[in-house]
C-alpha cells in the first residue's frame, strides 16, 4: 500500500503568506473588523508612542500566538480564556519591563496603554479564533500579520495627527517657521481623540475606494 506521504508545506507557501497579507489590507483588524479602536485613539497623538506600541503589540501577539498554539491540545476548553490571559499578561509584563529599562520616556507617555495590551481585543480574538486550532508556524504568521495590520493603521494615524496637530514628525519640526510667520497654526483638534476617530474613518474611506470588494451590498 503506497500510503500517500503528505507533502510538507513550504514555510512561505502562498497559503501562509496570505496569513500575513490579508490582515494588512482586506481583513485589517482596525479598519475592517473595527477592533482595538481604543488604543488607536489614545496613543496616536504623537508618532513615537504609536511606533513603540505597535512593536510591543507585534511581539506580544506573535509570541502569545505561538505559545497558545503549542499548548492548544493541553488546554481544557472551559478555562481556555484564563490560560490565554495568563500567557498574554506575562508577555505584556515582560514588554513593559523592557520598555521601562530602555525607552523610559516613551514608556511614561504610553502609561497604562502598555498594560492595556492585555485587553486588546485583537490579541484575544486571534488567540481564540486562530491559535487555538492551528499549528505554531501559521499561528506565528497570523500573529505577525494582524499586529502589522494594527500597527500600520496606528502609525498612519499618528503621523497625520502629529504632523497637523503639532507640526512635527518624531518630535522634529517639519513645518517650516516661515509657514507660521505667514499665519499658519497647528490644528488643535488633531490632538484631541475625536479627530483620531475621524482619521480612522478617512482611512476606511480611502481603503474602500481602492478595494471595492469591501463595500457591503445592500
Amino acid at each position, binding site marked *: 500500500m503506497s500510503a500517500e506521504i503528505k507533502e510538507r508545506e513550504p514555510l512561505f507557501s502562498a497559503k501562509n503568506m496570505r496569513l500575513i497579507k490579508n490582515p494588512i489590507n482586506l481583513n485589517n483588524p482596525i479598519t475592517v473588523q473595527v477592533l482595538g479602536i481604543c488604543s488607536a485613539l489614545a496613543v496616536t497623538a504623537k508618532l513615537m508612542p504609536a511606533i513603540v506600541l505597535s512593536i510591543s503589540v507585534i511581539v506580544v501577539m506573535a509570541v502569545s500566538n505561538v505559545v497558545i498554539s503549542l499548548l492548544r491540545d493541553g488546554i481544557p476548553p472551559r478555562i481556555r480564556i484564563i490560560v490565554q490571559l495568563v500567557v498574554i499578561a506575562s508577555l505584556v509584563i515582560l514588554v513593559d519591563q523592557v520598555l521601562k529599562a530602555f525607552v523610559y520616556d516613551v514608556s511614561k507617555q504610553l502609561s497604562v496603554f502598555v498594560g492595556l495590551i492585555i485587553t486588546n481585543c485583537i490579541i484575544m480574538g486571534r488567540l481564540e479564533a486562530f491559535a487555538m486550532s492551528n499549528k505554531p508556524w501559521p499561528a506565528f504568521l497570523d500573529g505577525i500579520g494582524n499586529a502589522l495590520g494594527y500597527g500600520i493603521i496606528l502609525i498612519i494615524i499618528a503621523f497625520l495627527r502629529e504632523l497637523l496637530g503639532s507640526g512635527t514628525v518624531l518630535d522634529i519640526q517639519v513645518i517650516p517657521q516661515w509657514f507660521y510667520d505667514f499665519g499658519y497654526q497647528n490644528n488643535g483638534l488633531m490632538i*484631541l481623540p475625536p479627530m483620531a476617530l475621524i482619521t480612522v474613518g478617512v482611512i476606511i474611506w480611502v481603503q474602500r475606494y481602492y478595494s471595492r470588494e469591501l463595500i457591503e451590498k445592500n
Partner: protein
Amino acid sequence: MKALRKFIDKQKPHFDLGGKFQKLKSAFDAVETLFYVPDKVTKTGSHIRDAVDMKRTMIVVFIALIPALLFGMWNIGYQHFLSHGEQPDQWTMFFYGFLEMLPIIIVSYGVGLGLEIVFAQIRNHEVNEGFFVSGLLIPMIVPPETPLWQIAIAVAFAVIFGKEVFGGTGMNIVNPALTARAFLFFAYPSDMSGEKVWISGLPDILPDTFSGATPLGNALVGNFDQMPTTYEMFIGIIPGSIGETSVLMILIGAIILLATGVANWRIMFSVFAGGYIMGLLFNLWGLNEYMQMDALNHLLLGGFAFGAVFMATDPVTGTQTKKGMYIYGFLIGIIAVLIRVFNPAYPEGMMLAILLMNVFAPLIDHYIIESNISKRLKRMKIAIKI
C-alpha cells in the same frame, strides 16, 4: 427675462452628456434652477408637486438672515471705530464692515459650493441647495478677525464630514454650519475666543473703558460691571460673532421664518423657554454672580438667539414629531445655559448644546413614535375586547 431664458437654452446642449462641458452639468443645473423652476416631471404614479421646492425654502431662510447680516456689517465698523475712539458717519462704518465681511462670505461660498459641485458630479446628483444657507450662516457665526484660510478649512471639513459622508443635504446628522464653528473652536482656539478676536483691526492701545471682550467673556471672568445694558444687548451694539449680536434683527428674521412657515415655532419657543427657566433656576440657586444674572440676559447674550432661530430649527437635524420638538428645544435651552455658567472652558454653550441635541434628535423621535404606536395598540386591544 426672455433673453436670459434663450441664453440658458442655447448653452444647455454643451452640458448634456457628450457635450463640451459635461463634467460641469451639475453646476449648470444649479444655475438654471436658481433662475427658473425646473421643468422636470414625474413619469410614474401620481404626484402632486409643490411649487415651493427646496431652493425656494432656502431663499426664504436667506432673506431672513439678511437683516442680521446687514446689522452685523455695520456693527463690525461700529466696533472698529469705537475701539479707535473715532466717530465717523454711519455709511463709513457700514462700508468698513462690508469690506471686512465680503472676503469671508466669498471664501465660504467658494470652498463650499466647489466641494458640493465636485461631490454632486461624482455621485451624479444635482447640486443641492443645502449649502446656500450654510454658506451664509458660517460667516455669520465666526468672529470678524477669523483668518480666511481657517474658514476655508472649516467649511471644507463641515461639508465633507458634516454632510457629504452621510449622503449629502437631508441626510446629515449634525448641522453643517455648527460643525464648521465647532471645528474652528477646537482647532484654533486662540482665534476663536479671548479678547482680541471680536473686533476687526483692534489697535494695540485701547481707549479707556474699552475692552475687546464679549459680554459672555466678561461674565465668565466675573467682570459684571463691564456688562452692557439690556438695551445694548438687545439692539446688538456689542462685540461678538458677526451676525449674532443683534437680537432685534434676529427676531425680524424669526418673524419672516415663522410667517412663511419655514421654521417651526415649537422649537424656537421651547429653546427660549428652556434657557429662561434654567436662568431662573440659577437665580434661585444664586451661588455666584453669574448665577444671579437676570435670566432674561441669558437669552440676549452670545449666540443664544441666533442659535434658537436659525440653527435649532434646521428641519434636517432637528426633531420631526411635535412632542419631540418641545423636548428637543427645551433641552437645547437648558444645556446651553448650563454650559455657559458651569464650564469655564466654553464661554458659549449654544453651539455645543445644539450639536449635542442634533445627535439625540432621532432618538427622541424614535421614542415619541414608539409610545404613540403602543398607545394605539392598547386602544385597539380594548376595542377588540368590547
